């Protein structure tokens, strides 16, 4: 009964309803798109990091802190037996990390040198290219970003200077054998990759490693040594933190959009109560309780939210679908800013995101519909019939 009247009233209001529904559905659309973009960003960053760097997780030397290059020279030891058995089964591969100085074009630059087994297939890195070079110099694999900052091309040689385990200087020539195009700046910027056995002999750290990366879907081994297990959740924490830190600015935009939609509905409700005094009086005179009249007006407002959801689906749905299929081209390369981002960002709309956005918008719409309707409970039916509205 109430629903019928509410729908009739909404349809009767025509332009006002259309405008309210459009503004609300636009807010709906923007919130969905932006949240979807952030989720897509995080999902993409996670996927890229897992594929190219962390696979199923890692075991770290206890002193290893990837954010502190000073820790590298004390972050190496023989690999514990149980972790070594994973490597023997080809379920994991070791990486040796150290800080070096490189001289591309005769300029000195600090770099992080990582030794990796060229034949590993656990992470998607063109490490096999390190096998292809045999001319006495150290074969080096670098990323596109590193190639740009060092102005190095494939075939270019440069000097690498390092300190071995005894803190004695050593130096040799390295030759770029491949430049990888990776979205993961963490394996690109400031990094040079060389074969593990060469790295171990350079630093006089035979059979030693800094961390061991293992395959996806492997369970943590009960290890008795002090090497630390780092799972995927731990290893993508920094990425999540970067994206979380950026969210507040977008949340401000959500608030502005929702406020606009809420103000439109609030305004429509206030106007309705002012203009529809006689109707309210008639309904009351015919026996409708004040509570039901309030419910009717709140329902009318609430129906806006439902109509908006449908309008979003119909009007903006194709846009959302298109973006989720072909992505949104990004104007700048975010990898230089330390973010793993695709050239075309593909938003991810999870059921949770759609449901939570709908609930949020509906609650706000219901609140702004109910607030002006409360005044109806203060109206006298006789005044309402005379057309005297509450001001």
């Amino acid at each position: 009964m109430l629903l019928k009247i509410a729908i009739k009233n909404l349809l009767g209001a025509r332009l006002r309803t259309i405008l309210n529904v459009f503004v609300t559905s636009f807010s709906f659309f923007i919130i969905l798109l932006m949240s979807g973009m952030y989720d897509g960003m995080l999902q993409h960053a996670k996927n890229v990091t897992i594929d190219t760097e962390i696979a199923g997780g890692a075991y770290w030397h206890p002193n290893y802190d990837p954010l502190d290059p000073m820790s590298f020279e004390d972050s190496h030891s023989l690999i514990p037996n149980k972790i070594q058995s994973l490597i023997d089964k080809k379920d994991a591969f070791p990486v040796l990390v150290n800080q070096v100085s490189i001289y591309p074009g005769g300029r000195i630059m600090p770099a992080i040198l990582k030794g990796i087994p060229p034949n590993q297939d656990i992470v998607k890195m063109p490490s096999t290219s390190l096998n292809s070079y045999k001319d006495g110099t150290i074969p080096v694999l670098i990323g596109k970003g590193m190639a740009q900052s060092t102005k190095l091309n494939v075939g270019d040689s440069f000097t690498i200077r390092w300190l071995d385990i005894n803190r004695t200087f050593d130096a040799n020539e390295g030759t770029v054998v491949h430049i990888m195009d990776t979205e993961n700046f963490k394996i690109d910027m400031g990094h040079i990759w060389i074969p593990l056995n060469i790295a171990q002999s350079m630093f006089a750290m035979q059979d030693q490693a800094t961390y061991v990366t293992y395959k996806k879907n492997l369970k943590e081994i009960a290890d008795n040594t002090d090497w630390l297990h780092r799972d995927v959740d731990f290893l993508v924490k920094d990425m999540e933190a970067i994206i979380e830190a950026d969210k507040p600015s977008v949340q401000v935009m959500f608030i502005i959009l929702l406020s606009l939609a809420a103000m439109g509905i609030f305004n429509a409700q206030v106007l309705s109560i002012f203009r529809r005094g006689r109707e309210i009086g008639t309904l009351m005179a015919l026996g409708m309780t004040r509570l039901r009249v309030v419910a009717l007006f709140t329902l009318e407002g609430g129906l806006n939210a439902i109509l908006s959801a449908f309008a979003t689906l119909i009007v903006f749905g194709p846009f959302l679908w298109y973006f989720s299929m072909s992505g949104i081209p990004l104007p700048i390369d975010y990898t230089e800013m330390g973010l793993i981002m695709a050239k075309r960002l593909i938003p991810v709309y999870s059921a949770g995101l759609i449901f939570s956005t709908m609930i949020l918008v509906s609650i706000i719409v219901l609140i702004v519909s109910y607030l002006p309707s409360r005044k109806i409970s203060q109206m006298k039916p006789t005044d309402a019939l005379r057309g005297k509205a509450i001001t």
Partner: protein
Amino acid sequence: MIIWLSLLMTLLFGQSDQLSVEEIIVAMDNNLNAKSRIMKSKMIVKGRRSTRTIESKNWVVGANKAFTEYLSPPREAGTKMLKLDDKLWTYSPQTDRVIQISGHMLRQSVMGSDMSYNDMMEDRPIQDLYNATLEGSVNMNGRKHWILYLEAKIDGLSYPKRRSWIDVEYLLPMKEELYAKSGKLLKTAAMDGVKKIQDRWFPSRFLYKDELKRNSKGTEWVIEDISFDMNIPSNRFTKAMLRK
């Protein structure tokens, strides 16, 4: 074969001018090292575009204790460094903090120069660190020099190999080449302006150059004033002095 050749070289050249290789090294150490020394110097760092001059005063006792206070330019004035054995601390007045330089930081350059903290710290007598072989002699700038090839006899030296051109009269390494373990030339050092100071020959100008840097003009270190075997109070080499 190499051992025989080097022995032959040592026999041929090692006794020349009545000095054995060991005696040359000892004489060189005696010239360069003293019980203590106080000096005022300036370091001229020649960059690609500009040149910076950094003045400092140094107090040194033996090979294990050293204290440096930077006097100019204003940006560096008040910065102090204390070396005790193999530890190094720096104090910066801007941050009012004492920081211990260790590990990889020792490889960083001092004030943007071609010298690293490690280079500054390694001033133990050469006879304790290297085995020397006389490779021959050569005339440089009209003066006779012996060429000594030095190989580390202990682990953990920054430069495991070096080649020195020792002036026969001054008994000072007028030119040095510092090599990596692989034999690659890393740095060169040269000295000139040799003066007789308190019965020893001592250079008044050093030039260090990172040979891996292309177009490097090097870093000049000019000794303006130096006095040897002075009494330096022991409290000079305490961390408390860094903040004073």
